[in-house]
C-alpha cells in the first residue's frame, strides 16, 4: 500500500470511529437511547481518571496482567511443545490423538469448576483457565506448521550430515515452522484476553471482577472504562508482538 493510500485509510477509519462516538453521544443527549443502558462517551475519560486516582485501575490491571502473562506463557510453551512433538514423532501423535480430539472441543470456561476445586478462587485458577485456551491455539498452529514443512529440507539436512533429531529440530523444524508458530502465538494473545475476563467474573481479582462489580451497580461507565482498557492492552501487546515477529521473520519480507 502506498503512503497516500495508507493515510487515506487511516483518515477514513478515524472519521468513521469519531462519527460513531458522536452519534452515540447525541443519541443519549436527545433521549433516543435510555441513559441507564449505556454511558455518555464524554463521561468515560473522567471515570477513567477517577479509577486511576483511587488506585483501583492499576490494581486490577496488574492483577489481570499477572494471570494473563502466566497463563499465556504456560499455554504457549506447552501448546508449541506438544504440537511440535505430535507433528515430529508419529508414535506420540498416535498415542495422544484421541485424547486431543476428546479435549479440544471443551471450551476453556468449562474448566472453571475444576479450576476452582483444584486451585480455589485464586490467581492460579485464572492462569490455568487462560492457559487452556492459549494451549489449543498454539498446539494446532504448531502442529500444522511443522506438518507443512517441505520434506525436501529434511533431505538436504541429511545430505549435509544434519540428519539427527536435534539438528533437524533446531535447523529446520523450528525456523521453517516459525511463521505458523508465531501466528499461533499472536492468536493466543487475543484468546488470552477473552478468557482472562471470563475467568475473573467468578470472583478472581482483576478487570473481570471489577466489571462485574460495576455492572451490579449499573455503573456502565466503569464497565466501558475497563472494556477500553482491555482493548488498549491488547493493542499494545499486539503491537509489541508484531515488532518482534517482523524481526524474527525478516527473511520473509
Amino acid at each position: 500500500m502506498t503512503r497516500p493510500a495508507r493515510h487515506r485509510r487511516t483518515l477514513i477509519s478515524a472519521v468513521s470511529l469519531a462519527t460513531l462516538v458522536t452519534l452515540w453521544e447525541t443519541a443519549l443527549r436527545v433521549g433516543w437511547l435510555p441513559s441507564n443502558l449505556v454511558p455518555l462517551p464524554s463521561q468515560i475519560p473522567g471515570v477513567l481518571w477517577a479509577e486511576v486516582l483511587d488506585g483501583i485501575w492499576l490494581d486490577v490491571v496488574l492483577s489481570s496482567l499477572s494471570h494473563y502473562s502466566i497463563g499465556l506463557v504456560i499455554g504457549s510453551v506447552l501448546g508449541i511443545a506438544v504440537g511440535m512433538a505430535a507433528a515430529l514423532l508419529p508414535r506420540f501423535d498416535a498415542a495422544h490423538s484421541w485424547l486431543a480430539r476428546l479435549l479440544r472441543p471443551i471450551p476453556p470456561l468449562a474448566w472453571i469448576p475444576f479450576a476452582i476445586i483444584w486451585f480455589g478462587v485464586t490467581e492460579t485458577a485464572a492462569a490455568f483457565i487462560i492457559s487452556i485456551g492459549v494451549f489449543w491455539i498454539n498446539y494446532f498452529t504448531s502442529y500444522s506448521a511443522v506438518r507443512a514443512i517441505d520434506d525436501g529440507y529434511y533431505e538436504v539436512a541429511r545430505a549435509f550430515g544434519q540428519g539427527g533429531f536435534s539438528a533437524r529440530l533446531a535447523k529446520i523444524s523450528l525456523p521453517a515452522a516459525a511463521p505458523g508458530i508465531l501466528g499461533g502465538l499472536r492468536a493466543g494473545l487475543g484468546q488470552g484476553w477473552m478468557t482472562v475476563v471470563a475467568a475473573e467474573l467468578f470472583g478472581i481479582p482483576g478487570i473481570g471482577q471489577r466489571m462485574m462489580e460495576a455492572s451490579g451497580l449499573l455503573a456502565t461507565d466503569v464497565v466501558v472504562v475497563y472494556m477500553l482498557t482491555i482493548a488498549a492492552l491488547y493493542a499494545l501487546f499486539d503491537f509489541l508482538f508484531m515488532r518482534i515477529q517482523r524481526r524474527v521473520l525478516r527473511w520473509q519480507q
Partner: protein
Amino acid sequence: MNDASAPVLTARGVRLGFADDVVLDDIDLEVAPREFVAMVGASGVGKSTLLRAFAGLLAPQRGDVHLSTAEASASRDCSMVFQAPRLFPWRRVRANVELGLEGLGLSRDERRTRAMEPLSLVGLEELAERWPRTLSGGQQQRVGIARALAVRPRVLFMDEPFSALDALTRQRLQSELTELRQRSDAAIVFVTHDIEEAVLLADRVVVLAKPDKGAPATVRDIVTIDLPLARRREQSGFRDHVQRLEQHIGVAATPEETTS
C-alpha cells in the same frame, strides 16, 4: 591400484525399489577420483533414486554402495546439489553454505572463512549476506553448488541441477561447472535427462534403461566421451556421441553394445 587412484565410489549389485516393485537392479559402477560421470535415461527409469542411494539417502534392497572416506580434515565423503536449490530461506546465503560445515568441529570464524571459498568460486562472494529470496534462480543454484563444495567432498552428486533453469542460465552454469571441476578435487556424479548436457560435461556417460517393459532398469552401457574439455556442441564427434546415446535410450528393447 594405489590409494590415490582407488575408486571413490563403488556400487556392486545394487537393487532399489519399494517392496516388491523393483525399479533398478544389478547396478555395478565405479567412479575414479576427479572423474565426471553422467547418468542418463528415460523419465522414471530411476536415475535420481540411484543417485540418492549412492549418496546414502536411500538404502538399497540388495547390494552395497561404498564411498571412500574423506581424507582431508573437516570434510565429508560426499555432498549433493539438488534439482531445486532447496536453500533454507531463513538463512542468509553464507549460512546456507555453512550448513554442511556445522558439526565438523570448525569454529564459527573457520566456518565463515570456509564458506566464502566456494562462494568466491561460483562468483557470489558479494551476495554472502543476502537472503535467498533476493537471488535469481541461477544464483540460487550457484549457492547450492557452493554449499556442496564447501565440505570438500570426495564425490559430488548432482541431481539434474540445471533442469529448472532457463536456457541461457543453463548454458552459463554448464560452462562454469566445467571450469569448477578443474579447480576441485571432487569426483562428480551428475544425473540429467539432457543427453547433450551429459556429452558436454562428462568423462563417461552411464545409460540406464529397462531391458524389457516392466523389468527393472539396469546399466545398459557406459560410454566414454573422449572429446577434450571445454566442449562445444558444434565440434566434431559431439553429435556422434549424442546420437549413440539417444539410440541406447530410445531403443531399450533391443540391447546393443557400444564402445567409444
